[in-house]
C-alpha cells in the first residue's frame, strides 16, 4: 500500500490541490452549519423579520456552493490522478513488453499479459480516485471540525477525542477478523462459484450424453451453497459495521446528553452553540466511516498493483546493437561459443560453427532439444548469455539493428497476420513502395494470387483479427510473399511438422528453392529431403550441439543420426 501512496505523493501538485480543496470543503461545511444555526436562532428565538435574514441566506448559499464546488474539485482531482497513474502503469507495461525478447518465444502467457494491461490496471483506479482523496479529506476536515467544536464547547471536543480513536482500532480488528473468515471459506467459495462455469463448459458433453436436465438441480444447489457461505463471511463484515455505527451513535448520544445538560440544567451554553455542535458532530463521524469504506476499495487495488509490479520487476536483458552496416548479400556467420540460459526453462550449451554465404543449413533434433532457441539466437531476437555471433567478422552487437533485420526473413510455422488488408500484410516485409505488378508477381510465385483474386476485394480484403480467417496453408503462403518482396539475404525457416495441404507443400519447396539462389537459408528441418540436401546439418540434443556436417559425413561419423533416419524410414507404420 505504501508503494501506491508514494506514487500519489510524487504528484505534489495534485496532492497540494487535494489538500487545499479539502480545506475549503471543511471551511464550507463549518460555514454552512454556522449560517444554518444563525438563521434558525434569529427566526426562532429573536423573532427577526425575513428581510433581515436575506444576507445570511446569501452566506448560506455561498457556503453550499463552496462545499459542493470543493467536493467536485476533489472528485475531479482524484479521477485525474487515477488517470495519470494508470497511464504511467500502462506505458511502463507496454515498454517492458517491448523490451522483453523472450516474448517472441512464449506466446503462452499472452492472455495473462493482456489481462494485466487491461484489468489489473483498471483495478488500480479505485485507490487513486477514491481512497487517496478520502484519505486527504480525513486528514484535514475532521481536525478543522474538531478545532471549531473545541472553541465552542471544549467538553464536546474532549468526548470526541476519547471516543473517535475506537473507530480505526475497531476497523483494523474487524478487517482482520473478516479476512480470516474469508480465507477460511475461500476454497469452498471458489469451488461453488466455479460450478456454473464448469457445467456451461460441459454443456455439449452433457447434451451428447442426454444428461443436461439433471444439471439444473446441481446449479441451484451450488448457487445456494455459495450464497450461504458468502453470507457467513458477509455477516461478520456487517456485524462489524454495526459496531462502528454503535460507537459513533454512542459518541453522538453522549455529546447530545452533555449539551442538553448544560442547556437545560446549567443554562451554561446558548441554543446557538448547542445546535451548531449538534450539526457538526455527525459530519465528523461520517467522514471517518467513509474513510473506512474507501479502505476496502484500496485493498483490491493493492493486490492488482502487486501483480503489475511483479511483471515490471522481471529481469529483462534487452539486446544491444551498434552502428555498422552490413552489405546486402548473404553474410558469413561464425558462432563463437554462443550460449543461452534463461531461468530453468530453456538453455543452450556453447555452440560453435561456421555458416558460409549461400549455404543451406538444417537444424535437426527432437522437440525440446533447443532448435527454436538456436534460431532466435541466430536471428538476433535473443541476447546470448556468452560467446559471440560474428557477422562477416563483426560481432552482432556492433551491427545496426535496422541493417541486420533488413537482410532477414523468418518464416515460422504459424506466421502472424495483422489486422489489416492482405496487401498491408504482404508489404510489411519490404521497406519500400510496392507496385501492383510486383505484388501480383510475388503472390503468383507464392501460389496465392489465384485465391486472392477470387476475393471480392482482392488484395484489399481485410484479414487478421475480426477479418477473414485464413487457413494454415494460406498463412504460410503470405509469409512467402513477404519474403519475395523483401528479398532478404538470410532466411530462417521453421519447416511445418504436419497439417499442410499438398499444394502448399509443393509451393513451399519450390519457393524455398528459388529463395536459396539469393540467400543463406537456415531451416529447422522436419523433412528428409530438406535434411539430405543441406550443406550443413546441426544435430541438437538436450540443448547441446552433438554433431555438425553434411548428410554423408554425419551418416559416417555420427551413429545417432543414422539411427534417427532408420527409425523414420520404419516409422508411420503401427
Amino acid at each position, binding site marked *: 500500500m505504501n508503494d501506491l501512496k508514494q506514487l500519489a505523493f510524487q504528484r505534489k501538485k495534485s496532492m497540494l490541490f487535494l489538500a487545499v480543496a479539502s480545506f475549503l470543503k471543511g471551511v464550507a461545511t463549518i460555514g*454552512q452549519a454556522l449560517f444554518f444555526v444563525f438563521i434558525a436562532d434569529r*427566526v*426562532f*428565538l429573536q423573532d427577526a423579520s*425575513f428581510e433581515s435574514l436575506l444576507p445570511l*441566506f446569501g452566506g448560506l448559499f455561498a457556503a453550499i456552493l463552496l462545499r*459542493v464546488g470543493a*467536493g467536485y474539485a476533489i*472528485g*475531479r482531482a482524484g479521477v*485525474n490522478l487515477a*488517470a495519470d497513474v*494508470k*497511464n504511467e502503469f*500502462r506505458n511502463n507495461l*507496454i515498454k517492458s513488453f*517491448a523490451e522483453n525478447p523472450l516474448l*517472441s518465444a512464449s506466446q503462452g502467457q499472452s492472455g495473462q499479459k493482456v489481462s494485466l*494491461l*487491461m484489468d489489473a490496471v*483498471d483495478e488500480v483506479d479505485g485507490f487513486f*480516485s477514491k481512497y487517496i482523496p478520502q484519505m486527504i479529506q480525513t486528514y484535514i476536515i475532521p481536525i478543522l471540525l474538531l478545532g471549531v467544536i473545541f472553541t465552542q464547547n471544549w467538553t464536546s471536543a474532549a468526548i470526541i477525542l476519547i471516543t473517535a480513536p475506537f473507530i480505526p482500532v475497531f476497523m483494523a480488528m474487524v478487517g482482520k477478523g473478516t479476512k480470516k473468515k474469508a480465507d477460511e471459506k475461500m476454497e469452498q467459495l471458489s*469451488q461453488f462459484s*466455479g*460450478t456454473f462455469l464448469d457445467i*456451461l*463448459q460441459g454443456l455439449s458433453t452433457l447434451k451428447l*450424453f442426454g444428461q443436461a436436465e439433471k444439471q*439444473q438441480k446441481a*446449479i441451484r444447489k451450488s*448457487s*445456494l451453497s455459495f450464497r450461504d457461505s*458468502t*453470507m457467513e463471511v458477509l455477516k461478520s463484515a456487517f*456485524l462489524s459495521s454495526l459496531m462502528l455505527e454503535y460507537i459513533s451513535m454512542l459518541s*453522538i*448520544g453522549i455529546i*447530545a*446528553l452533555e449539551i*442538553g*445538560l448544560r442547556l*437545560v440544567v446549567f443554562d451554561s451554553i446558548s*441554543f446557538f452553540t*448547542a*445546535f451548531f455542535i449538534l450539526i457538526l458532530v455527525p459530519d465528523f463521524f461520517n467522514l471517518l466511516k467513509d474513510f473506512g469504506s474507501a479502505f476496502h476499495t484500496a485493498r483490491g487495488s493493492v493486490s492488482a498493483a502487486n501483480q503489475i509490479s511483479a511483471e515490471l520487476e522481471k529481469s529483462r536483458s534487452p539486446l544491444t546493437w551498434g552502428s555498422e552496416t552490413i552489405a546486402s548479400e548473404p553474410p558469413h556467420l561464425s558462432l563463437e561459443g554462443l550460449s543461452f540460459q534463461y531461468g530453468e526453462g530453456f538453455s543452450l550449451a556453447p555452440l560453435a560453427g561456421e555458416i558460409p554465404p549461400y549455404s543451406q543449413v538444417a537444424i535437426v533434433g527432437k522437440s525440446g532439444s533447443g532448435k527454436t532457441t538456436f534460431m532466435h539466437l541466430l536471428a538476433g531476437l535473443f541476447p546470448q548469455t556468452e560467446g559471440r555471433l560474428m557477422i562477416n567478422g563483426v560481432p552482432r552487437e556492433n551491427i545496426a*539493428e535496422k541493417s541486420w533485420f533488413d537482410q532477414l526473413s*523468418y518464416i515460422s510455422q504459424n506466421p502472424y497476420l*495483422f489486422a489489416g488488408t492482405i496487401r498491408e500484410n504482404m508489404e510489411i*516485409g519490404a521497406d519500400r513502395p510496392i507496385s501492383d505488378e510486383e505484388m501480383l508477381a510475388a503472390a503468383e510465385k507464392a501460389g496465392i494470387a489465384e485465391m486472392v483474386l477470387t476475393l471480392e476485394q482482392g488484395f484489399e480484403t481485410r484479414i487478421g*483479427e475480426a477479418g477473414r480467417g485464413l487457413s*494454415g496453408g494460406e498463412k504460410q503462403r503470405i509469409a512467402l510473399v513477404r519474403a519475395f518482396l523483401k528479398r532478404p539475404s538470410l532466411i530462417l525457416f521453421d519447416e511445418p*511438422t*504436419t497439417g499442410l*495441404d*499438398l499444394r502448399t507443400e509443393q509451393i513451399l519447396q519450390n519457393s524455398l528453392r528459388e529463395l536459396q539462389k539469393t540467400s543463406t537459408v537456415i531451416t529447422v528441418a*522436419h523433412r*528428409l529431403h530438406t*535434411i539430405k540436401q543441406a550443406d550443413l546439418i546441426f544435430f541438437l540434443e538436450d540443448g547441446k550441439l552433438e554433431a555438425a556436417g553434411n548428410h554423408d559425413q554425419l551418416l559416417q561419423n555420427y551413429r545417432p543420426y543414422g539411427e534417427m533416419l532408420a527409425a*523414420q524410414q520404419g516409422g*508411420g507404420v503401427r
Partner: protein
Amino acid sequence: MNELKHVLKLTLMEKKDVSIAILFGFLAGIASVALMGSSGYLISKAALTTQMTTLVVMAACLKLFGFASALSRYGERLYSHRATFTMLSHLRVSFFERLAPLAPGIFGKYRSGDLLSRIVGDVESLQNFLLRVFYPPVVLGIVLLSTIFFSSFFSMGIAVVMLIGLLLTVVAVPALFSIRKRRSDGKLRADRGNLAVEATEFLYGFRDLKIHQKLDAKEQQLKSDAAYYNEGQKKEGLEENLAQSINSLVALLVSFFVLGVGAYFVAAGELNGLYLAMLVMISIAAFENVAAMAAFPSYFEESRKAAVRLEEIVAEPALQQGIVKLPSGPLDIKLTGASFSYPGEKSLAVDDVSVHLKPGTKTAIVGSSGSGKSTLMQLMLNVFPLDHGQLSIGGEPVETLAQESIWQEMNVVLQENHFFYGTIRSNLLIADPRASDEQMEQALAKVQLELFPLEMNVEEKGQNLSGGQKQRLAIARALLKGKSLWLLDEPVSSVDSLTGHTIYQELFQQGENDLFVIISHDLAGLEKMDQIIVMENGRIVETGSYEELMKKKSYFHQLKQIENSVFA
C-alpha cells in the same frame, strides 16, 4: 427498463427477502431521519424550558432511534445480499434452462472460447441489479415520501420543496445521466476492445513485428491506444463525479429552501418556530442518502447491457427438430449434397459432400488442418443445420428426428472433451448412470487406465489429467455408453502410437458390428478401414480403401509420402 424485465421478475421471485430488505432499509432511513428530527425539535424545546423531562426524552429518543437505525441497517444489508444471491441462483438456473436446448450448436456458431466466460461474467454483474439499481431508488423514494408526508402536517410549502428535491435527485438527475451514459458507453467499450486487440496483436506478433522493424511503431500505436482508452475512462469518471456533485448540490439546496420557506412562514407567523430546526434537520437527514444514486447510471447501464447480451444468446432459434425416435439396431448415416458455412463467413466449410456410411462399416476421414473434417463430423452429429443437402440417419431424415434421440444412439469423442469437477466415477456415470463399479473399471482397463481408482479426483476441466489421459477417459466414457454409432474426432492424437493402436483394437472388438467414423490426425494404421475419405477445402477429393488409394497414386498417396518423410 424493458430489457431488465426478466431480471426483475427473477429478483421478485424472492418476495420475502426483498420485502424484508426494503422494510429494513425503510426503517433504517426513517430512524435516522427521526433521530435528527427529534434532536432538532428537542434542542429547540430545551432552549425554551428548564424541565428535566425534555432532557430525558431527548436522551431516550437519541438512543432509541440511533440503535434502531443501526440495527435496521444491519438487517437491510443481510437480507438484501441474501436476496441478491438467491436471485443469482434463479438467474443461473433460468439461463441454463434456456441455453441447454441450443447446445452444442451455439458454441460452434460463436466459435469463440470467451463466450462462456462472458456469460458467467454477465450473470455475475447482474448481482448489482438488486443492490444498486432496483433497491436504492425504491427505498429512498419511500423514505423521502414518508418524510414529505410527515412534513406536510407542519408546512405544505416545505413539503413541496422536498417533493421537488425528491423528483430531481431520485428521478431527473439519474435519468439524465443514464441517457448520457448510454451514449458514451458504446465508445468506451469499443476503445477497450481495440486496446485489447492491439495488445494481443503486439504480443502474438512480437517476432514478426521485430523482424519487420514495426515494433517501435506498434509500441507507439499501443501507447496511444492506451492513452485514448484512459482518456475515455477519465471522462466516465468525471461524469460520475459530476452526477454525484449535482445530486449533493440538489440535496443541500433542498435544506436551504426548507430553511428559507420555513423562516419565511415563521416570520409571517404561520409556522411555530419550535419546529423549524426539526424540519431542517429531517431534510438534511433524508437527503443524505441520495449519494447512492450517483452510481445508479453506471450500474443501470451495466445491468441493462448484461441483460441484453444474455438475452441475445438465448434468443437464438433452436435447431428445428422432430419427434420421431431413432430405431435401435443397425443404423446408417447418409449425407447428400451437404454444404455448410459458418455464420459470417463466405467460404464454405463443407462444400457439396455426399457420403453413405453403411451399418457396420469403418470409415476414416483424413486431410490437412482446416480442410473441414471436424465440421463434417459436426454435421453428422446434427449439431448445425445444413445450408443445402440432406442428412438421414437410419433412413430417417434428421428433420423428423428428435435431436436427443440421435445422440442417444451415438458414442461421441470430440477433440475437446469436457470433464467435470468431481471424481473419475462421477465423470463416467454421465455416460451411464446405472453403470456398476465393475463395468467402469472394465472400461478403464480397455483404455489402459486401470491404474486410475474410481474415487480419484478430477479437477475442473480435468486439468490434473494429461491430454492423452483425457482422451482415453473420453473413450472409456464412450465405451460405457455402448451404442452402435461411433463418431470419433482425433480420439488418440495425444496418446503414444502403441497404446493408440491397442485402444483401436479394443474399440473394434467391442463394436465389431458397429458403424465407426474416425477423424485421424495421421495416416498410419488406416489399412483396416473399409473406407478412407480424403478432404481438402471442404470437399472430398478422394474416397476408397487404403489399398485402392495407394494404388491410385494420387492425393492420398502423396500425403502418405510426405508423412513418411516428416520427422516429428
